[in-house]
């Protein structure tokens, strides 16, 4: 009897969870299935630790699907598979998309490690994949079937080094989240570029590390304070970074903080409050000033679809990933995976929401400009566009 009561309780609990789901989903349209469709697979973390990032990318992809529902006269069907923020599940999700759903191309995933796990599979099965926000260089390196629309850690690190140098800094300190591949990548290339720009091998005065979920940064910050830098480059997760800044201000460190696009989220300013004022980042998309017509179109559609949401930059990247595939299918004039891959490799000057996209030999976009944003009155506002000549 007790067991049955417990079971009933569990049922009620889950049922109440469903009613919550219902409301959210009634807005999105239904996807019909037919024989005359081209399938594009999407694997993203929709449950688990990284669900927020995956959800944002899927939003962008869905909007792209709505604006471009057809290619070559056929309907495009987006098949979404959840990789559950788990590497093993990422590989089974991709295997399922390839074997069971027979998709022509794949988009994904938020989190480079999931994309890396899928890399071997897409290569072996000759199904091209386009990553939206996976910035780890190893994702596309040596893999002819993996492309991506975001720029890489080296570029972003270089952009910030240029910005720091331009604003007059001669000495920089680095505080990096060492367990985060993204932060480590940015920090390494920042250092390389900054040393080259200043011509002084000791211009990066100190590099200190912390781990994801750390709360106390006193030791690292005293090292930084003793080194007396002009600027601090601190790429990392938004919560930890905001805490770093809070504690730095308490210690009397007043120099400006620079970071990466991960900070561009409401939680960063709400955790940091007044202490993150003046924090400067580079990012790939600014919804208040889209650089292309495609970007304007996307922002408009997004605001209509999700009126009460703040747009994440990765949504724009998800949109671009879909767009690049559609253009490649058009160029290849076929839904054959290998033909799409060849067309993707030749992608040149495709207008996306985040800028014009041209893939280089590695399958990475040759983007040459980034947007600089600064926290002003508790909000990230557009400051500058930095262009790097290669």
């Amino acid at each position, binding site marked *: 009897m007790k*067991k049955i009561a*417990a*079971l009933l309780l*569990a*049922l009620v609990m*889950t049922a109440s*969870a*469903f009613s919550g*789901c*219902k409301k*959210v*989903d*009634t807005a999105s349209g*239904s*996807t*019909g299935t037919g024989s005359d469709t081209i399938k594009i697979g999407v694997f993203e973390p*929709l*449950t688990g630790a990284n*669900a927020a990032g995956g959800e944002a990318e899927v939003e962008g992809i869905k909007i792209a699907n709505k604006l471009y529902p057809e290619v070559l006269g056929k309907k495009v069907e987006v*098949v*979404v*598979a*959840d990789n*559950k923020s*788990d*590497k*093993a*599940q990422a*590989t*089974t*999700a991709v*295997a*399922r998309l*390839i*074997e*069971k759903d027979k998709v022509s191309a794949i988009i994904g995933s938020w989190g480079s*490690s999931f994309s*890396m*796990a899928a*890399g*071997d*599979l897409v290569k072996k*099965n000759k199904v091209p994949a386009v990553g939206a926000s996976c910035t*780890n*260089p*190893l994702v596309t*390196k*040596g893999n002819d079937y993996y492309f991506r629309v975001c720029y890489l850690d080296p570029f972003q690190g270089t952009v910030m080094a240029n910005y720091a140098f331009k604003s007059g800094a001669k000495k920089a300190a680095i505080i990096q989240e*060492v*367990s*985060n*591949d993204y*932060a*480590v*990548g940015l920090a*390494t290339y920042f250092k390389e570029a900054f040393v080259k720009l200043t011509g002084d091998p000791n211009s990066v005065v100190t590099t200190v*590390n912390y*781990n994801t979920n750390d709360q106390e940064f006193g030791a690292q910050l005293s090292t930084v304070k003793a080194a007396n830098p002009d600027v601090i480059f601190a790429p990392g997760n938004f919560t930890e970074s905001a805490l770093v800044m809070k504690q730095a201000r308490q210690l009397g460190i007043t120099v400006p903080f620079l970071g990466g696009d991960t900070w561009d989220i409401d939680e960063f300013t709400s955790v940091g409050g007044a202490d993150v004022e003046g924090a400067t980042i580079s990012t790939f998309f600014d919804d208040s000033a889209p650089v292309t017509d495609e970007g304007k179109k996307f922002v408009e559609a997004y605001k209509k679809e999700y009126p009460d949401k703040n747009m994440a930059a990765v949504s724009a990247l998800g949109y671009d990933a879909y767009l690049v595939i559609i253009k490649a299918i058009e160029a290849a004039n076929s839904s054959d995976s290998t033909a799409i891959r060849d067309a993707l490799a030749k992608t040149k000057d495709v207008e996306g929401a985040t800028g014009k996209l041209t893939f280089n030999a590695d399958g990475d976009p040759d983007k040459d400009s980034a947007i600089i944003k600064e926290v002003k009155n508790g909000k990230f506002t557009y400051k500058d566009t930095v262009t790097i000549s290669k």
Partner: protein
Amino acid sequence: MMNNTKKRNIICTAILAVIVLALIYFANNYLDAYIVRILNLCAIYTIIGLSMNLINGFTGLFSLGQAGFMAIGAYTVAIFTLPLDMRSTIFYMEPMNPAIAGIHLSFVPALLLGGVIAGFAAFLIGAPVLRLRGDYLAIATLGFSEIIRILLTNLQSITNGALGINKIPDNANNMWWSFGVAIVILILTALLINSSYGRAFKAIREDDIAAEAMGINLFKHKVMSFVVGGFFAGVGGGLYASLLGTVDPKQFYFTLTYNFLLIIVLGGMGSISGTVIASFIVTCGLELLRTFDEPLTVAGYEISLFRPGFSMVIFSLLLMIIVLFYSKGLMGRTELTWDRIFNFFGKMKSKKAPKSTEGGSTK
């Protein structure tokens, strides 16, 4: 009579072995890559589940260090089987330590080495912490697995740090490897459990003071169970790395251990067959439930429940039901033996028999 059942059991085991081999052959050659991948994952989860059950279920040590042992095995395989010409591209940020940059091992030695290093780590950590009991041991082993993860993050020149390693040669995506190793480890575990050491493990689980009074060296047996479990988990981790083709420190977060804790609790703490059954149920179940993640349209209306994430709700519900009705796991502490199977069918027959006589009496 005794001889007859023994003979019957041997024949049945032989038939089962042939069937399993035939199934592996069939699956490996005729099934698509998606199903083969899931089956391989089942086999690897079985290995790690068994290693955890040996420590937690049979010896009664509440250890949560499995992710750490797996990480050691996985990284050993990743580092040593990585082709030499690819190393400089993958270790692009900080070159590989020259001491290991030139060493390349083939899959089997690397797998064994991974197991041995994990076993050695188990010995190092086991010697001091196995004096602890219950929750304290759980915390200490959890800490151990976190230390391993932090080390992997920071030893950039050996492990490539947070960037991880990819392009690990794909050896385990062949069912002969994953199932072969799983079967060997299954047999080894069964032999160990039924040996005098295994009986000592179980005695320690039941009551360590009584076990000590019986002359069992507690420390020796606990360390032994821990080291063997660590070795198995290391081998399983190596296969895991090879199946996924990539490793990074984040994947060995302590939550990974909970997957295996789920498997052994579901299957039954202290049941080998339970672990095997549960790892198949959990792994295949999660995949089968993916159907619930796909949109479903009935008569033009999309049913909004069917959206990504719904499968996890169903999965949790199923787990609750199992835990409610099988509070000791599916198998408890019992094993699925031939005697049990035949007894079960025998009972079914005898149940039917009295019914028919009853029917006769009412006439």
